[in-house]
């Protein structure tokens, strides 16, 4: 199978053995060609991230996905550790920091609360996009092309059918992005990447 974008999934779940949604999503894409799943907690149980190795991995791939559950409106700590350590000044950003220029990146997140809770007038009072600003700006600072997130809301109450549906949707997103020519600017019109496939 030909693929256009080599895809790297930076996966962070401190308790993957008990996860349902993330498990399901990964199961749906792990056999896709050209997709590499990099399990950060499994790789660095003591948080001593191998910076050189991570940078080489980034250079080899065109599409980067931060994949994790939504903890305190953000990512699990190892992903922040990864951002802190790997995106070095002079390499990823700042003077001479052009290593990641032009690569595509987005977040794939599962949240316990339902979609309606993430509205200005909803329970949490802010939208998902507002919560994700630090990630958006991080990508921007590194001259990367930040795409809308793929989101699975309401993971506490999700049914088996719901899991299946989201799994298939995620599979389609990754398959299309990695194997087909997609106009990236078009994608930015969608709130979620979920809507791109469903539309």
């Amino acid at each position, binding site marked *: 199978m030909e693929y256009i974008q080599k895809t790297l999934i930076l996966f962070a779940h401190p308790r993957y053995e008990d996860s349902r949604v993330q498990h399901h999503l990964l199961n749906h894409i792990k056999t896709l060609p050209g997709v590499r799943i990099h399990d950060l907690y499994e790789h660095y149980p003591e948080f001593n991230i191998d*910076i050189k190795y991570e940078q080489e991995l980034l250079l080899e791939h065109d599409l980067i996905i931060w994949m994790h559950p939504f903890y305190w409106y953000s990512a699990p700590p190892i992903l922040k550790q990864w951002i802190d*350590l790997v995106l070095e*000044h002079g390499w990823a950003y*700042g003077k001479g920091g052009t290593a990641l220029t032009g690569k595509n990146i987005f977040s794939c997140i599962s949240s316990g609360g339902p979609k309606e809770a993430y509205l200005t007038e909803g329970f949490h009072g802010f939208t998902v996009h507002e919560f994700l600003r630090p990630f958006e700006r991080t990508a921007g600072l590194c001259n990367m092309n930040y795409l809308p997130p793929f989101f699975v809301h309401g993971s506490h109450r999700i049914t088996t059918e719901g899991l299946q549906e989201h799994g298939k949707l995620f599979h389609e997103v990754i398959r299309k992005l990695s194997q087909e020519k997609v106009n990236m600017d078009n994608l930015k019109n969608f709130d979620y990447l979920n809507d791109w496939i469903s539309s």
Partner: protein
Amino acid sequence: MAEDILLSSIIFLGAAIVCVPIAKKIGLGSVLGYLIAGMLIGPFVLGFVGQEGQDIMHAAEFGVVMMLFLIGLEINPKEFWYMRRSIFGLGGIQMVLSSIIIGAICHLYYGFSHSTSLAIAFSLSMSSTAIILQTLKEKGLNKSSAGQASFSVLLFQDIMVIPILAFLPLLASEDIRNVSAEQNFISNLTPFMKTLTVLGAMASIIIFGLFIVNPLMKVIARTRLRELFTATALFLVIGVAYTMKMVGISPALGTFLAGVVLANSSFKHELETDIEPFKGLLLGLFFIGVGSSINFELIYQKPGLVLFLVLIVMTIKAGVLLIAGKVFKIKSDQNLLFAILLSQVGEFAFVLLNFSGQLQIVDPKWIELMMVVTALSMTITPILLLINERFIDPYFGTKEIVEEKEQDEIDEQHSVIIAGFGHFGSTIGRFLRANGINATILDNDSDRVEVLRKMGFEVYYGDATRVDLLRSAGAEKAKLLIAAIDSTDINHEVIQVTRKHFPNLKIMARARNRFDAYEILDLGVSNIYRETLYTSVHMAVDVLHELGIRHYTATRKAQDFIRYDEEALRKLAATRHDAKEYILTVREQIELEEKLLSEDLHQQMTERDSAWDSTPLRS
């Protein structure tokens, strides 16, 4: 005379060496291999041996006794207590129904007298412990419900042999009634005293097993002489068998009881591995004996009659077993297996028939015939089992639930084996146990074994470099072997033995120090844990902290250092490979140390670390 013994040994062993591997290779199982070997060397085919087949069979019956001891070791008293219902229920149904049907046929169809019919019925309703248990073990069916049921029935038959032997003289005519089965210690006692003696003997086995064997074994273990251990084990089994015979209980039953009592002993594995080879050899001899005693001449004279008798006896027995199994709700595929397993006539028939002959209850011509039927039915069983396994069993819908079996196996065969339970190994064992993993532990310090067992660990006493001990600890099925023995030499030996005999078992090895690690690397193990590395680096972190360096910074440096050091270890190990011997000479050790230190100088130990460093941003 001595030459005769040597010659017959050569014939018996030679026949076994030739036939058994071939039989196993084509899937017939070792039992059939031995039987065929016996037939070949017997008086009717090659004629290497004459009537001594019978004699050897009697001597070799001791293999059955040893086998029951080993089985007892596998069953702890609690499990045994749970089995009481199936022993008396299944066993009772089998004995009573089989005897009634066979007896009725003898009486009504062949017109034998009541006594003759009864004697034949009792004899033929016995099954062969030797064949069944050997087959179960070989096929790994010990814990299946068919296996458990078979075992219960066999145990009941064993219990019944003695009363039957006592009962047979009552069937004989007045003048020969005084021929007794065996003259023993209690024959002249009153029934009340007899019972008392039997109970006393059983109680003494239990007391002996619980309070004397363990301390005795500990003393023996301290001498560190292997052969003395074997001698003790043999002494134990033979002693129990002899005592039981004296008081008129079946020796097999007695040793089984002794096994059950010792099932919780810390020396269980040692006893097992010591008795196992003797049992195997004696059982093999026993099967050869059976094979060589088959009277082919009689078969040749009356092929129709012999065949018909074998067929009818086995059908009746299997039918009764099927009914018994149904009553006890055994699943149909297991029930069929159970029925086939026990359908033959067993070795006890030889004893009972011979005795009936002496008592003149049964006509010698018929005894000869029944003997042939017995031997033939024993030979047919493995073939029937093979047919069932290959052609019938696969079509059953109601297989026993596989998951259940798998759990049993994990429970029985732990997936981690820890060799050496000193401070290093025990820390691992405790951590694993805290996380719900029970490892099988091997240690050769008998005092420690005792203490740890009291604390609820599964620790077995034994020398972990022995292949048979590793095998009985489950090395064939386990996932990991942790080599954590204090002595580096023994630890290396365990690694070598494991790699040679269990190539699929992953080894994780404890290394004393850097040099030890080089040597273990050369043995082909890559998961090496140096006890001097992690602790000293951990301490060094605290030293840096004491000197005012932030704890997290020091910790990150330490992580880098360990990574660097492990790379350096592998690199240096590769450079010294002109050495034929893996053991490092002192000169080599110094050379390697020098290389390492100079490597350190050239290496920027912690590479450019710009993490959370904002100086470049400020400039």
